[in-house]
């Protein structure tokens, strides 16, 4: 359907042809949007991993009671609608939001930072919004790791860091890769957060699709953009999961 529609020249879907593809692929602006969208995904993945992996380690070392509290905190964002979470971030990141007020009062900055409608603000909020998608697969893989492996590593003379990078990280790869895939796929396509926090100044593929299909009513062009989004996300996802499989098959159930 999507593929079919994309091969029409006019927005009334009457003249078959490659016109829309030519228009989209011939426009340097399209490439910028594609690259921006993928980079948004990559940055969000990096941020979630940087924050999420230590969190997962904390979770593993926590007492069973604390683990229950932590897992509740981790899962809670999933229980709220994306719209609610996104608007909450507007309150937090706004000119007179929590972050700016705090930084101003601490005297770290003299005037409010622009966080809304910037990529930084978007990455910050996406990091929180997508965090459960990283943590859940990661924690489920890591908690199945044999605790003796870490002890064995220490008894053989390895420092904590060596144990982390030579034993824990390689063995948690399957969970890490699965989490990254989910975060990447869902942050590149997170239309609501992208538009509400990023605004119209930051244009990503989902916004383009929405504009073309529901504002301009150029469905063939929207189809072209959708397919582009689909293909680019699939490419990155399959590349990542290939890497994951190569490093993965060592964890026993």
């Amino acid at each position, binding site marked *: 359907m999507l593929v079919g529609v994309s091969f029409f020249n006019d927005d009334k879907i009457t003249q078959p042809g490659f016109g829309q593809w030519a228009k989209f692929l011939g426009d340097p602006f399209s490439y910028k949007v594609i690259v921006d969208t993928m980079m948004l995904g990559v940055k969000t993945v990096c941020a979630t991993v940087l924050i999420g992996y230590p969190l997962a380690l904390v979770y593993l070392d926590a007492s069973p009671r604390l683990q229950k509290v932590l897992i509740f905190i981790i899962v809670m964002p999933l229980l709220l609608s994306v719209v609610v979470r996104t608007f909450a971030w507007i309150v937090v990141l706004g000119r007179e939001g929590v972050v700016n007020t705090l930084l101003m009062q601490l005297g770290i900055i003299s005037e409010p930072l622009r966080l809304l409608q910037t990529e930084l603000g978007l990455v910050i909020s996406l990091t929180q919004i997508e965090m459960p998608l990283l943590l859940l697969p990661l924690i489920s893989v890591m908690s199945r790791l*044999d605790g*003796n*492996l870490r*002890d*064995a*590593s*220490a*008894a*053989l*003379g*390895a*420092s904590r860091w*060596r144990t982390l990078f*030579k*034993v824990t990280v*390689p*063995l948690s790869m399957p969970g890490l890769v699965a989490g990254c895939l989910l975060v990447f796929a869902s942050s590149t396509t997170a239309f609501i957060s992208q538009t509400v926090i990023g605004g119209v100044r930051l244009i990503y593929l989902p916004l383009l699709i929405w504009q073309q299909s529901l504002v301009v009513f150029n469905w063939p062009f929207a189809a072209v953009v959708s397919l582009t989004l689909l293909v680019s996300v699939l490419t990155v996802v399959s590349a990542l999961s290939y890497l994951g499989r190569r*490093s993965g098959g*060592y*964890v*026993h159930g």
Partner: protein
Amino acid sequence: MQLTQQSTMAAPAGPPAGRTLDVEDLSVRYGQALAVDGVTLAIEPGEVVALLGPSGCGKTTLLRVIAGFVRQAAGRVRVDGAAIDHLPPNQRNIGIVFQNYALFPHMTVAENVAYGLRARGFHGPDVQAKVSRFLEIVQLGAFHERLPRQLSGGQQQRVALARALAVEPSILLLDEPFAALDRNLRLDMQIEVKRLQRTLGLTTILVTHDQDEAMSVADRIAVMNKGNVEQFDTPVAIYDRPQTLFVNGFIGTTNLMNGRVSSLQNGTATVALDAGASLNLSAPIGIGVGAPVLISVRPEQLTLSSVPGPDAWKIVPGLALPIGAQLVHEARTADGTSLKIIEPRRTVMSDAARTYCTLAADARPTLFPRST
């Protein structure tokens, strides 16, 4: 640290370089419960000591304290006289083989064995040579590039052993190392571990709940119960002269008979059995005339006889089961205690005539005070 010099394997001519291990008044608390309660053990260089006890007796906790994974509430651990309590596990130089071997599943056999050497900062051909040497020692020279999951249980255990030994630890800890192996393989590996330990002269602690394993591998056994060491002695002494009722019941099979001390003379007690006989036994300290006692006798230290006498008591013979070269008799005494009696199978006399039970010539029964 020189990689090539420290080797105790290469030159078996030199004296074994074992270390002493002293555990002094060690206690470990999990919440309110005392998992280990004031344990003291002095272990000689090159000795194999088995920590033997039922599950939950604190033996594994004790091992984990020595390895540095668990912090003690009180007490000290010394290697060669120097306290190691303040050191984290990675600075203790103690080798450990886990029950599930804990091989790194994403590394080859060679990488597993090299892991400890690399962690100590060694690189290049030295490491390769050493890995090869230790894999040869455990007879896995052809398995360098295999992954652990491609090996059998016994082979995995050899790798775990090679990995622990390659860093030339001062002490070797074995946590139920044979429990996951099937029976035939277990004996082979026990012999192999014992052989390796002898050649290396390595002070070794073995945790096990299997008394046969402790008996066959260890030089001395510490029998543990509820966080305490009940007896720390040679296997033979533990078997023949158990000092507490727990040890007596935990090690081997035994018969317990009720009796009462009728007279005491020069450390020999005359005990009147409730079953109806009078026995002269060596008395433990603190037993008075008239005290109720339990007499513990191993099944092989009892014999059946057809002759009544002052030191023979009447029994009602029950089943007789041939087990290997032995015959296990079941019998019941006059006061209702059931006894197990083991005799060589070549005894020809008919059982029906032998309705008396007596101590065998070399019997060494043990007396325990009995609370009434």
